[in-house]
């Protein structure tokens, strides 16, 4: 069976910035493939290269068996794209926007109206179908943008940061919809900076940093090395002084990392005894507000491989895209 996306040695530079630097990967048909990395890592540039909105400097792209290297728009009939910002027409209603997007793919009138109504129902937007897109909330806009991306039933769907900047309930609902699309057999290429989102949804994940893929594997394989580890996250009410050396000296079998000024991450191969640790911290002037056992996750692997703190990555994006 032909792979959905095959990319080899793909590079793209904008003036003196190397946005994508020789990446290679394959997305299998029916797979949900995650592209995980911080802002400016090259995620959106990669999507633009794959969807025909940009031309590669070097490398090759095959989409659904079609060579798109020299003809970037050759496979557009196979592809649906949900960009990182909603880009539908503010002056059209939700229903009109969907019908218009369906018409761009040549769907006959009766079919596009039926499909638009169906998607408005699926995305719980039927009540707002006659309202102009401009009046929709952020979450509704994201949902309608996803509906527009799948209106022509694409073989391959590109989702660029689908849950950025929307509230928790909408994000959860969107993830559910993405999972349902995947279950129905759509190949999905998902870029995200939310590690837990990638872990929950994706079959395989690529970590991209500074335009380079540093690791690709299934979520299961990636997480395996840390599954046996034990981790505790300790939060402080006030920022403690420098305790790193004292902690390492007193608890030599434990690993300590200050993830932020007021969060300490403790790792061990054996279960962590929290009592002595808390006592030590409080005796040294730290005011502990919470100690929580952590399930080792993809985040740990991401931090280990890329050296980028997930919290910092999330915070940076949310500053730009609004709360979640």
């Amino acid at each position, binding site marked *: 069976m032909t792979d959905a996306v095959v990319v080899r040695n793909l590079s793209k530079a904008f003036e003196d910035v190397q946005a994508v630097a020789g990446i290679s990967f394959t997305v299998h048909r029916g797979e949900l493939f995650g592209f995980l990395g911080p802002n400016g890592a090259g995620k959106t540039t990669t999507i633009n290269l794959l969807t*025909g*909105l*940009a*031309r590669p400097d070097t490398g090759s792209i095959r989409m659904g068996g079609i060579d798109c290297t020299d003809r970037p*728009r050759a496979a557009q009939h196979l592809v649906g794209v949900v960009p990182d*910002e909603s880009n539908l027409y503010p002056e059209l209603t939700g229903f009109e926007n969907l019908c218009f997007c369906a018409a761009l*793919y040549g769907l006959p009138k009766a079919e596009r109206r039926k499909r638009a109504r169906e998607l408005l129902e699926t995305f719980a937007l039927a009540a707002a179908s006659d309202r102009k897109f401009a009046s929709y909330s952020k979450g509704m806009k994201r949902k309608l943008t996803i509906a527009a991306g799948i209106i022509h039933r694409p073989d391959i769907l590109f989702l660029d940061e689908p849950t950025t900047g929307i509230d928790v309930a909408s994000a959860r609902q969107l993830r559910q919809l993405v999972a349902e699309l995947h279950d129905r057999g759509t190949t999905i290429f998902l870029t995200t900076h939310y590690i837990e989102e990638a872990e929950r949804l994706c079959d395989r994940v690529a970590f991209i940093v500074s335009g380079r893929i540093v690791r690709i594997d299934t979520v299961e394989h990636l997480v395996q090395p840390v599954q046996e580890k034990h981790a505790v996250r300790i939060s402080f009410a006030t920022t403690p002084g420098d305790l790193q050396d004292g902690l390492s000296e007193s608890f030599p079998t434990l690993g300590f990392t200050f993830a932020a000024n007021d969060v300490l991450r403790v790792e061990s191969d054996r279960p962590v005894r929290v009592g002595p640790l808390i006592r030590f911290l409080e005796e040294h002037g730290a005011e502990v507000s919470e100690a929580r056992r952590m399930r080792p996750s993809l985040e740990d692997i991401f931090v280990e491989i890329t050296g980028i703190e997930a919290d910092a990555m999330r915070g940076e994006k949310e500053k730009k895209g609004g709360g979640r």
Partner: protein
Amino acid sequence: MKLWTAFWNILRKDMRTYYLKPPNISWGLIFPLAWTGMFFVRSGSGLESIPVLLPGVVAVSVLFGTTSMLAVAITFEKKNRSFERLLLAPVPLELLMLAKTTGAILFGVANAFVPVIMALFLADLSELAWGAFVPAVFLIAVASTFLGLFIAVAVSEVFEAQTFSNFLRFPMIFLCGLFFPIARLPVFLRPLSYALPLTYGADVLHGAVHGGHSMPFALDFAVLGVFCVGLFAASLANIKRKWIA
């Protein structure tokens, strides 16, 4: 059939969201009226001068009607990224841009006939050569629209589109022989006149309305056609170079 569906729906959406909006319809009506009135006042002449003024007013109406709307509409869609949605559709770029520009062309042609209809009530236009007049209006609308497209692709902000189009349009009013013959221009400006598409369109209009043309119609139409093809090809090349870079 599929491509026709996409073409027709892009055109229909643009007509609805841009060209058939009340401010644009009123612009299409008021603008030719204001120009006609201004020239009457300026020349101090009577209704007998309508055939001489009509070609210029028609050309200006088409030029302003097409370039301003298209340049702004495309720059606006590029800015809010809805234009990306069109670029992602499986429609050849040539057809996509023709769909985007057809609305402006039709709007320009409709604008042209506002002063014509008014003139029909006020002057004797029985000698008007419609066979040359209508194709000339159409080709002026096409050339002006593609000029608007060229501007839209060259800039990135809506205000730049306005500025750039005014920079080109206002000199054209005086350089293209719309209201006074090119022969009355200073010699050093005349080559510039012949480098502008409107010169050839206006020449056909003058010829069709009152027989006052200075070049053969065939040459006018040929040069206008070359401008249309050239501006469209240059715009497409710029889109490929700048927007699918």
